[in-house]
């Protein structure tokens, strides 16, 4: 399958050596095959639309850790940069990839071994969440499915921020579930981290002899392969109730039927302060497997099904909804699970009903099915309305911080939409999407702005340069400003927001990222450019996007935090 341009960027001998490791059927340098990898992954509407994605020189698909090691060592010997690819894992794929980069596609490594007695699973990068859930729910165990969907790699998300709305006594951060880790460094050495350092069978703990260096690989900022390749992890599982979630339905109606011990409750409250009060009371009472504040436009996304085009059904519904209607019905969706017994669910239900009554809530009808929590987390549903993912920032913080941040975002979005009503899906003064997590100890919120895809795509006839520019200005300035004003910690730093810019106003952690990277990857071959791609994108392609107000705030905040944690260099 090698095309005439195979060796334009890498030496033929290097390609032959890499090909020999995986076998010719698992290697390609064909142009059409390579183009299929361009722009895959998170935030593609920004990088791809702006022409900042490149294709790899070749792709190799290893099956074993030994093959990965040999590929990485060979790349080091020939000084060829490499980027690991897996299933869609919220990671970037190709922005600013160098022309001589090769992809190491990890999808063939899809083994999974479940230890249900000790509640963990050993898995490889090719295993996706829906596969994991399908396997472990049969054993009365549960994990989560992050917003990226059931098709994202479990392993990859364990090193990012694979968060789910389901979080009852399960930490929302998937990285906290890691036990043993098998890591191929950027130079091709294999480190077995945590208890695994003691031997191949010891997958059980995150800590082992010596310091716990798994932290080198984790963090809210994505390394996206720039610290090498993790080939296996041991991942903690959690107990679930014993009744089966039965799949049913077709197409958009596919779901699992919920057993009596797993039930949804949809509640409408008259205003936002009441919703917030009710959520706090639920947290105080220690109830709720998911407590999810649903933005009004999601209701029309959920209703957009049937035989018609979804986009028509959505807009027919949402265009008719008035701001007053949105203001009158702030919706909360609560999932209760009787983990121990039906009695537990009945107790939690009684508490929930009391809270609803005391806060003048109205219990609405809920179909006792799930489409999005246990297997799918079908966040793409929202994309049907505008055809792109419209994220400004994602935050996990204290309830007080989130509430402040959400209030400010809503206020600014409303003002913006009065001036430019057609730039983004009109939110009609709705609050951002947020969740109460870990019994109210943490809140999770996403600040969303949904543009219409073709209007921000320079190659489309519908392209609107003004709209496209405002979109970039909105997401970078609003995101950075809100982080500085409220202290909101974004899990999209390095993905949506520029690490270098935000690090300046915290404790310059980007310096540490650079130091680690240099230490472990002296040749700079592992996913070059990461995790500073957003910075690079802004500096090189859109240097004027970050406005004066943001720059001024950065200076003020950075000055006030000078020397914080001792990380700042003189």
């Amino acid at each position, binding site marked *: 399958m090698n095309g005439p341009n195979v060796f334009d960027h890498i030496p033929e001998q290097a390609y032959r050596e890499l090909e020999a490791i995986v076998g010719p059927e698992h290697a390609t340098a064909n142009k059409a095959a390579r*183009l299929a990898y361009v722009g895959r992954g998170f935030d593609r509407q920004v990088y791809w639309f702006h022409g900042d994605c490149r294709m790899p020189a070749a792709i190799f698909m290893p099956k074993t850790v030994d093959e990965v090691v040999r590929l990485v060592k060979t790349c080091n010997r020939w000084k060829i940069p490499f980027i690991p690819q897996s299933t869609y894992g919220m990671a970037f794929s190709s922005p600013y990839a160098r022309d001589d980069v090769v992809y190491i596609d990890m999808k063939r490594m899809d083994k*999974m071994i479940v230890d249900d007695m000790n509640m963990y699973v050993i898995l490889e990068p090719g295993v996706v969440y829906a596969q994991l859930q399908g396997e472990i729910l049969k054993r009365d165990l549960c994990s989560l499915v992050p917003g990226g969907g059931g098709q994202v790699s479990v392993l990859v998300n364990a090193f990012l921020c694979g968060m789910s709305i389901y979080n009852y006594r399960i930490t929302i951060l998937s990285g906290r579930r890691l036990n043993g880790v098998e890591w191929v460094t950027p130079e091709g050495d294999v480190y077995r981290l945590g208890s695994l350092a003691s031997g191949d069978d010891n997958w059980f703990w995150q800590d082992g002899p010596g310091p716990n260096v798994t932290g080198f690989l984790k963090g809210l900022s994505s390394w996206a392969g720039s610290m090498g390749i993790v080939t296996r992890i041991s991942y903690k599982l959690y107990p679930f109730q014993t009744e089966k979630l039965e799949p049913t339905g077709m197409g958009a109606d596919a779901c699992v039927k919920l057993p009596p011990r797993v039930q949804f409750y949809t509640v409408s409250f008259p205003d936002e302060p009441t919703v917030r009060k009710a959520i706090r009371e639920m947290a105080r009472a220690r109830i709720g497997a998911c407590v999810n504040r649903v933005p009004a436009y999601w209701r029309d996304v959920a209703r957009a099904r049937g035989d018609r085009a979804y986009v028509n059904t959505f807009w027919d519904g949402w265009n008719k909804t008035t701001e007053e209607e949105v203001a009158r019905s702030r919706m909360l969706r609560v999932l209760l699970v009787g983990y121990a017994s039906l009695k537990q669910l009945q107790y939690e239900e009684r508490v929930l009903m009391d809270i609803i009554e005391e806060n003048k809530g109205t219990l609405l009808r809920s179909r006792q099915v799930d489409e999005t929590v246990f297997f799918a987390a079908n966040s793409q549903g929202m994309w049907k309305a505008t055809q792109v993912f419209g994220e400004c920032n994602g935050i996990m913080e204290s309830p007080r911080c989130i509430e402040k941040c959400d209030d400010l975002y809503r206020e600014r979005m409303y003002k913006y939409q009065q001036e430019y009503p057609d730039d983004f899906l009109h939110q009609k003064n709705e609050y951002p999407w947020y969740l109460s997590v870990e019994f109210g100890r943490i809140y999770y919120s996403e600040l969303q702005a949904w543009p219409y895809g*073709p209007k921000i795509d320079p*190659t489309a006839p519908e392209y609107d340069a003004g709209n496209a520019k405002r979109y970039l200005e909105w997401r970078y300035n609003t995101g950075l400003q809100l982080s500085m004003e409220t202290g909101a910690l974004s899990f999209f730093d390095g993905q949506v927001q520029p690490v270098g810019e935000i690090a300046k106003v915290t404790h310059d952690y980007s310096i540490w990222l650079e130091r680690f990277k240099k230490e472990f990857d002296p040749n700079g071959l592992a996913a070059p450019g990461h995790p500073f791609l957003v910075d690079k994108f802004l500096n090189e392609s859109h240097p004027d996007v970050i406005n004066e107000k943001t720059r001024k705030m950065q200076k003020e905040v950075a000055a006030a935090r000078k020397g914080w944690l001792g990380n700042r260099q003189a």
Partner: protein
Amino acid sequence: MAGEPRKISLGLNLDDYYFEARHCDGQTPCRWIEYNYIQGVDFSWGCPAWRNQGFDAYGAAGKCNVVYYLLMGKLDYADEGLRDIVYRDPLCGRCDAACKRCLDLEIELMLESLRARMVEKGYGPMPAHVEVTGNIEKTGNRYGRSQAKRLDWVPSDASPVARADILYFAGCRASFVDTGIAKATARIIAAAGEKYMVMKDEQCCGHFVFITGQVEKAKKLAKANLDAIRKTGAKKVVFSCAEGYKTVKVDYPKLLGFSTEDLGFEPVHITELAAPWVKEGRLKFSKSFDMRLVYHDPCNLGRKSEKWVKWEGIRDNKFGAFVPPREFVRRGVHGVYEPPRDILKAIPGVQLVEMVRHHDNGYCCGADGGVKEAFPDVAVSTAAERLAEAAHVGAEAVVTACPYCRGNFIDASKDGMKVFDITEVMARAIGK
């Protein structure tokens, strides 16, 4: 300010799927069965093309990129790997059904149009396809057999009549290779007390020609067959072949620019025809068929058989709604799924179980899209995986409702797994 949105006409012009190519977000539900049905790693994938080859280009999301770069002139149709990517794919429609849940993009049409464009540019179809097409053009059937033998299957105990409301379109495979299916179909119709007619000069339906991207040849066959069918005055045209059924119901209107409801007759699969007869008691199963069975949904009878509704218009300049609104979108949910199951459940002794992947999640047998002819090893290995899935749920036999699925399964069957067409099972249960 934004320019004017381009006018789209759903059909077989690749240019009309720019939106699909550009707006696939790469999240790849197209590779999997619906997540809520996944039971672990085994049998979780839905796309045989991607599963067999592994590289992203073989899945629908990767193909969206490929189409985008072709449309932008940044990839040449002459690319030496392109033809393999385009044709090593049974076009089973699972990616389309999956995407319809998520982004509602017209992936199946884009892939069909890509093949049409490959042929137009002179880079398709594959050599093996040319050979079969030659047979069709020369003899009117896929096998290059004499058309004089087309009706040799007709059983003496259930002969056609000169004029009836029901026309049986047997298709190439049941007429020349698996004649037991055609005989069984005739006997089922007769057992219900109905009469049927056949066309003495029945031609190949053209499915093979269409699915390999040979649009002009497919149009010619479509016109000829439609004329011939309409001349018979049939109210219902019954098929025992899923490929023929889908071709006449969906692809003829698509090729010729009208909607299924304007065909002038009702295309029905034998299972659609017979299921009500069973329910009404007109068709009685007197013989027991003692076996634990799984039913394999043929792609062309399930996901791909929904009616075709002509649509032309634009996506509006604000947020992309269809103007005029699309009141029907083919998403694979209204296919023929229940009639075959209802029939099998009504047969004494049958224990019907479902595989992991069923209904709109059904895994392709691997035979369609010209794969069986151009990449026979891929077709057989895909079928072998499906048979392993049947064994996984403890089935003794696989029943399908398409002669091409049946044939491919038989080629792949090594471990004693039996394979039947549903008409054969029905005929045995009737006592014929």
